[in-house]
């Protein structure tokens, strides 16, 4: 009796996966709602196996109407054959994403059967200190963009004494927290979302290991409201994990007591900045806090707090399961392990590519991505979200790792790669970068609050041909003030896309009418 796999991932659903699943169920077929394999241009990618854990064959871009084709005839034009053998997957090295697309994300048995909990079990057999050491040895760095070594952050928190909440009497309960930043607001990134929808237990397991390592008792996942499916799936996973004894008191019969809650964002990009996220978690305006104090020392409610990105925490179970050394053997220079790259925008084969650091942007764009979706020439690639620089198509041989990208004037950010074909107007993109900052600035610091508005206005003047030389100089001065004067990365990095556009594509800034100086 065959089993059908239809992804429940939001991207698959956005292309009609639910209707396909319903059609199969209507025919009396057994359907498992798995996560997405990450080959998003194929969604809905429907798979069939002869038995639950057997090898699977797939049909791409399936629709409810076409499902009858798949049933009798394996050779329809949507048939892709053995899914695991597809080049796009076979060339990857999946650690974080090892189960995504394979398992039913909310089936705890499936999770364990595919290697889940191995990391946590190993961790619980070690001291917290030893776990911190293993994470340090793995070379794992923050996947949110800043790339701060996770082990050092954990060490700082581990060394703190738990504290009562700010303003509570000294006799009140004392806490440390694990906060996961799942406010994945960067355009072109979706790996956090797919992990939470496709393997939520992995995130919970990683948080639990972190709690054991630093002595935390409670965890929060700050998850953006734009991801309702991720919220629902992760919430269900939390309930199931509690039932399984994977969260709560005496986890896996150890002394560890730890529980996790979701906090849903409310429409603020800045809340992806860690201190703004803390403010938001405390129920306040998501205004950036000045540092010091570091969150690791005075974080959520004034207590020592680990703040890591979803992918950082989700890397931890496999590091603990397969060993720090094996992880550190991947990657290059100071960028060790794997990164989950996300290929997006005007791309033929968009999706998830997990591979060791060091792959070039060109390999990602061309070999995996297959060039633009439109078929037109590639003009620019934006790496690392709305605050990342634009790279012109001739600069794609850069290695995808933290330092190499910085050297190339960009940043790896959260690993998103967005392609633009030659119809793009880069002055418009520069204007958008400033405008995005206008929309999303928290308003605390002056360079960001007023500067972004002036940035839009000044770009408009340049594009309209008004005092182009003077206004271009003014725009550069403004970018300097924003870069060096802003309180956080929002204002501080907005000049990245603006200046990269201005520097590499000056022709787009020339007035369509007259360009007098």
């Amino acid at each position: 009796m065959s089993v059908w796999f239809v992804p429940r991932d939001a991207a698959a659903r956005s292309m009609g996966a639910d209707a396909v699943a319903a059609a199969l169920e209507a025919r009396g077929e057994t359907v498992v709602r798995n996560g997405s394999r990450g080959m998003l241009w194929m969604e809905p990618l429907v798979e069939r196996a002869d038995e639950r854990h057997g090898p699977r064959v797939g049909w791409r871009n399936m629709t409810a109407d076409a499902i009858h084709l798949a049933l009798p005839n394996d050779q329809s034009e949507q048939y892709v054959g053995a899914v695991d053998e597809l080049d796009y997957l076979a060339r990857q090295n999946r650690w974080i994403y090892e189960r995504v697309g394979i398992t039913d994300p909310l089936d705890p048995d499936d999770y364990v059967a595919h290697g889940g909990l191995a990391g946590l079990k190993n961790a619980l057999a070690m001291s917290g200190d030893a776990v911190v050491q293993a994470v340090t040895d793995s070379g794992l760095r923050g996947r949110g963009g800043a790339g701060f070594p996770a082990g050092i952050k954990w060490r700082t928190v581990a060394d703190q004494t738990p504290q009562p909440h700010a303003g509570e009497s000294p006799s009140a309960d004392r806490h440390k927290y694990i906060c996961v930043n799942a406010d994945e607001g960067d355009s072109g990134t979706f790996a956090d979302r797919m992990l939470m929808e496709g393997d939520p237990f992995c995130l919970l397991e990683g948080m639990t290991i972190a709690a054991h390592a630093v002595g935390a008792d409670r965890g929060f996942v700050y998850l953006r409201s734009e991801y309702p499916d991720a919220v629902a799936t992760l919430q269900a996973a939390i309930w199931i994990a509690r039932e399984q004894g994977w969260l709560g008191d005496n986890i896996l019969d150890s002394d560890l007591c730890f529980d996790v809650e979701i906090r849903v964002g409310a429409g603020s990009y800045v809340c992806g900045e860690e201190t703004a996220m803390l403010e938001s978690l405390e129920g306040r305006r998501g205004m950036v806090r000045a540092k010091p104090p570091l969150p690791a020392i005075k974080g959520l409610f004034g207590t020592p707090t680990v703040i890591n990105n979803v992918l950082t925490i989700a890397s931890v179970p496999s590091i603990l399961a397969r060993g720090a050394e094996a992880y550190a053997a991947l990657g290059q220079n100071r960028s060790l392990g794997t990164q989950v790259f996300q290929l997006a925008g005007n791309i033929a084969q968009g999706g998830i590519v997990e591979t060791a650091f060091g792959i070039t942007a060109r390999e990602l764009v061309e070999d995996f991505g297959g060039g633009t979706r439109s078929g037109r020439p590639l003009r620019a690639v934006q790496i690392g979200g709305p605050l990342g620089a634009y790279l012109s198509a001739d600069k794609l041989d850069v290695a995808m790792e933290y330092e190499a990208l910085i050297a190339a004037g960009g940043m790896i950010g959260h690993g998103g790669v967005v392609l633009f074909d030659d119809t793009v107007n880069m002055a418009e993109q520069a204007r958008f970068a400033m405008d995005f900052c206008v929309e999303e600035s928290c308003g605390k610091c002056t360079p960001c609050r007023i500067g972004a508005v002036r940035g839009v206005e000044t770009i408009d003047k340049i594009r309209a041909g008004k005092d182009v030389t003077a206004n271009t100089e003014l725009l550069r001065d403004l970018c300097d003030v924003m870069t060096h004067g802003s309180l956080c990365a929002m204002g501080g990095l907005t000049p990245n896309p603006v200046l990269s556009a201005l520097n590499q594509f000056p022709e787009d800034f020339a007035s369509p009418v007259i360009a007098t100086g």
Partner: protein
Amino acid sequence: MNMVQQFDPAQVDMSRDLGTPGAHSDVMVNVFIDGMAVSVPEGTSVMRAAAMVGADIPKLCATDNLNAFGSCRLCLVEIEGRPGTPASCTTPCQEGMAVHTQTPRLDKLRKGVMELYISDHPLDCLTCPANGDCELQDMAGAVGLRTVRYGSEGENHLHKGKDESNPYFTFDASKCIVCSRCVRACSEVQGTFALTIAGRGFGSEVSPSEQQPFLDSECVSCGACVQACPTATLQEKSVIELGVPSRKVKTTCAYCGVGCSFVAELRGDEVVRMVPDKQGGANAGHSCVKGRFAWGYAQHQDRVTTPMVRDSIEDEWRPVAWDEAIAFAAERLNQIKATHGVDAIGGITSSRCTNEEVYVVQKMVRAAFGTNNVDTCARVCHSPTGYGLKQTFGTSAGTQDFASVEHADAIMVIGANPTDAHPVFGSRMKRRLRAGADLIVVDPRAIDLVRSPHIEAEHHLQLLPGTNVAVLNAISHVIATEGLIDEAFVAERCDMASFRAWESFIRLPENSPETLAEVTGVPAEAVRAAARAYATAGNAAIYYGLGVTEHSQGSTMVMAMANLAMATGNIGRLGVGVNPLRGQNNVQGSCDMGSFPHEFVGYRHVSDDTVREQFSTVWGVSLREEPGKRIPNMLDAAISGTFRGIYIQGEDIAQSDPNTQHVTAALKAMDCVIVQDLFLNETAQFAHVFLPGTSFLEKDGTFTNAERRINRVRPVMSSRTGLSEWEATCALSEAMGYPMPYQSASEIMDEIAALTPTFAGVSFELLDTLGSVQWPCNEQAPTGTPIMHKERFVRGEGQFITTPYVPTDERSTRKFPLLLTTGRILSQYNVGAQTRRTDNVVWHAEDVLDIHEADAEARGVKDGDWVEIASRAGATRMRVRISDDIPAGVVYTTFHHPVSGTNVITTDNSDWATNCPEYKVTAVEIRPAAEQPA
């Protein structure tokens, strides 16, 4: 470094704005600011360290009474070995750090930031009320901004309207630079949280409550936001009207017992504004709506500035020259003295007057009148404090300075409402509560501290009025029987015999919370929990007010609190103590100055031969060794015809003293009533001589606040009456045959110091040097005594005194089933003579009666209805407000408006030891009334 200069932190002028608050650490770190070496406590910001060496870094969002915020980005600096340009306000100094505050790169960035600010700011400096007093203007100059290249056509806030709803200040959003200083001041300093930033990004704007006009918002008009504003966005209306001030005089507020220091800012002889003094020992730069804004009464048209006399109270007043008024008064008093003897006259001093003014009045009574018939309005508020603390600790004053509260782990507030009646101290207390101290409130009413934004009392013992002693005994019972007594402290510091007697008394079952629950209305478990919280906190402090003293057992209660503090070792260090919150600005001082009929200056009994001899010698007269009459005894004797003349300095006994009918009958019966006051008050209706008084803006002298802090009151303007009050008193004394030839107020203080061991070191010169000083100030404590009883109690060993609970005679009955209790609200002050003559009336136009819903329903009364309130003593009318702040069976009102006639219904029950009136308990009945009184 070759240009290193060593800098001496002691040379820092602390009146400057150093940008961020000081750090408290014993660890010092050494940093180099532009090559100058400075050593600062760990945690000090780079900005502050730089300001200390005079390298002021441009700033707009930073100010040293608010936590660093890091928003304006003008204060960027470069630090050797570090990337980027961190904000100096949020960067702490680290050992060896080398900071550069002025570099070409920084100049460019700062200019760029400033250019952004000015691109969204009106260009109306010349006509702006803050011209010359604007930090934005200063900073534009400091960074050398010359042009704004963005032009003026961009998006901006210049169209934003002006909010003029608050009577004292305007909010002009078009000038706002969104530095959040006002919002932070409202939160961090005042603790009201009435302001926020609404919206975000470029749309961010300051919002009172829900973007309401200030007057309709949660704002309490303390002025902290106006003070904090670096531009003319929040601006005093008086400055807009009169212009930027040209000279300044430091002085002391004349309202409550907090005694805030202010800088009066003037143009010529006209006050433009009162700004709280950052270096004020009591207020550290904070203020409330009264001191900050409600000083206009001093120039009010109702004020009388000419002496007046009349033969009989039926006659019209006759304005006369000072000489004539003095001669008139002296002749009348001398005549009574000749006819009826010295016991037939007396005087009352005022807690609104300076120490020097009070001193000369009591001296006049004792030396010129020849009697000890002198009393003070403190009789009706804090006399039990003097009695109770003297018996137990040996001195009639609170034990701590205000700053001590910042070290308390548990705070017990009994019968006090600091956020309304002592708001500046209330804010300080709230800051400590927000930081985590536990709060125990003992009060029949849910005062604001019980629950208000970001503050919640862990324990509220909502007792029935009149049962304070029972509750305190129950608390002490728990402490004694649950092993919570600090045996070591008691053994070392207290009189053991008195302790054993107290302990065996307090352990009696009659004092258990379970036994007393029915009497007090407080569940036993709540008492036990509160007792444990107090005893085990670490540092536990008691703050109390008139809700303690104005009871038939006021003195007993003061002693009960003293017992509790001693038994738990909560005396003699920071963060603990027993602290009265005094009603008026100079209650402490008027008591210190020998205003009580049984004591000379410094609380020394008139029967003490040595002391009396000393005063006799200096004053050159023989003095009586027997106590004189207290106010109620004077009034009784007046009705009996044996007391016929009185000099009343700045007190309106016809309104403020209980049982008004009795008071007016007594006043009517006298041959000579001399009233010295700013206004023709209620008492003046019965006076024969009216001597115009001076407002605090005209006084030269000292006030002593609730923490024993002696503050200078400096004349901001010349006396509107032509004489200082002490000069008028001296003139009268001289006219009666006893000259007091002082040349200045300072000379009076010198005499006080010479005669009073606790004041021996006090002089105007010392006060001008130190700013203020807390007595005792003498050879042992040349700079004063913030915390008392440190090594030993003033009386030697602490004296425990048993405090049996004796219920008041004033009990609810079938005829008068409700208990009325009274209090103050923030915007008004006492009988309202001052505040009613200011715009503060917009917040409190009338007194209302708070009543519990059940009691209202039972009487068919709805919210807003007029009712008649009747007691055994009388009846008055008021509007009601249904409130759940009070329990059923209790009603509550304020007494700020004479029309309310609250004291028409208060009885003449009083404290057994001091006769302090029992204002806080009156059995009453409420009936619906058709209309308001005429």
